[in-house]
């Protein structure tokens, strides 16, 4: 039972976000109406995903610097939970778009960028699965992971701002922060980001532990065969 407090915190925050997200007071705006509640889920999921991918890149850099295989485990599992959040972000965004823009997948540069971003990371998983040797797999996929993050940020955050997009913050639309983002929203939105990041870390941690157990068992098997 080591360090259980952040898991409890994660559950508490997520329940708070769900309850406050559905019941809490929100500003009344034209067109968006009640669907502004999706901010707590859709926008926060994307921010959590970017944070997790950034952390994944940091661990890849650490792996290349120090060569410890455990860093690569962390990097790959963080990337996996980030992809999971990315898919959830796409689904919640699709629901939102269906009601406010009238189309579940409008032809919007940010949406297409998000799809390409997920493709990049799916390619990362494919690259990982095509190596047998652990150290080789770790080294080459770390190189690709760093490269991928450097391309992912322009695709999702910079390029859509240069063109006309339906999303806020691009093509002359103002960003969220500048108006209509009142304190009621902030009280739920910021905890939501932290909650999702903690949830992603939890998911990654469970998978890392499974990996470590498997590795230890494999090694035990090899040594016991040697003894016989």
């Amino acid at each position: 039972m080591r360090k259980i407090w952040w898991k409890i915190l994660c559950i508490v925050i997520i329940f708070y976000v769900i309850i406050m997200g559905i019941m809490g007071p929100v500003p009344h705006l034209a067109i968006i109406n009640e669907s502004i509640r999706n901010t707590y889920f859709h926008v926060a999921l994307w921010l959590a995903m970017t944070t997790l991918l950034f952390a994944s890149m940091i661990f890849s850099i650490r792996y290349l610097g120090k060569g410890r295989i455990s860093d690569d485990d962390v990097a790959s599992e963080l990337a996996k939970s980030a992809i999971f959040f990315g898919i959830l972000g796409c689904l919640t965004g699709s629901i939102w778009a269906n009601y406010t823009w009238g189309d579940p997948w409008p032809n919007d540069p940010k949406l297409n960028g998000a799809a390409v971003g997920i493709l990049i990371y799916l390619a990362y998983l494919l690259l990982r699965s095509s190596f047998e040797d652990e150290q080789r797999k770790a080294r080459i996929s770390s190189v690709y992971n760093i490269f991928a993050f450097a391309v992912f940020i322009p695709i999702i955050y910079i390029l859509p701002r240069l063109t006309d997009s339906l999303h806020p913050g691009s093509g002359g639309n103002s960003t969220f922060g500048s108006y209509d983002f009142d304190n009621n929203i902030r009280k739920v939105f910021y905890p939501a980001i932290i909650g999702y990041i903690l949830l992603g870390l939890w998911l990654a941690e469970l998978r890392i532990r499974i990996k470590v157990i498997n590795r230890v068992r494999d090694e035990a098997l090899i040594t016991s065969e040697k003894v016989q």
Partner: protein
Amino acid sequence: MSSGILNEIKTLIWKEITLEWRQKYALSGMLLYVISTVFVCYLSFNLRRNQLTPIVWNTLFWIIILFTAVNAIAKSFSQERYGRLIYYYSLCSPQAIIISKIIYNSFIMLLLSGMGFIFYAFVMGNAVGDMGLFTLCLFLAAIGFASVLTLVAGIASKADNSATLMAVLSFPIILPMMLMTIRLAKNAMDGLDWSVSTDEITTLLSIDLIVITLSYLLFPYLWRS
């Protein structure tokens, strides 16, 4: 130190050129690849080239260039035998190897896209209004494609199914560059003023710069395995 690296780069580029010259089938094969692809497109549109809208003309051209680039650069690490690679790595620094490969591949891409454009304009009609800007666009795209694909080719050559992996890894990564290039080329076709395209040019230049810096920093870790 820096002059040493420059010398190494120069020698390595010469080595690539002599190697290419000795086995001419590789380069002539790529040239034939571009020309036959263009011809297939020309025939597939059933010779009605006046019905080709500028957007289709532009997109088709860049897709041909993209596929040519992937095919031409995929071989840059796999064509040489394993033992010879180890020999190079024992002689020169990895930075010199990646920089020389990027420069050499940029030359190849410039040649291929230039020839491709001439032939494409010859059979499909030339729709470009501002040749100067379009040439700049070809130039930036050749360097950008070459630098992205060189590192990806290095990554893919380490795996077994490198042909599939090359396409899967490079297409999503090259997409922002491709979209910017297509937009810049469209501006050039419409003959718009250069000041309209400064956004695209600076974005392309900065993507090129990021990619080349990353290749320079990351390649030493790649070749060790």
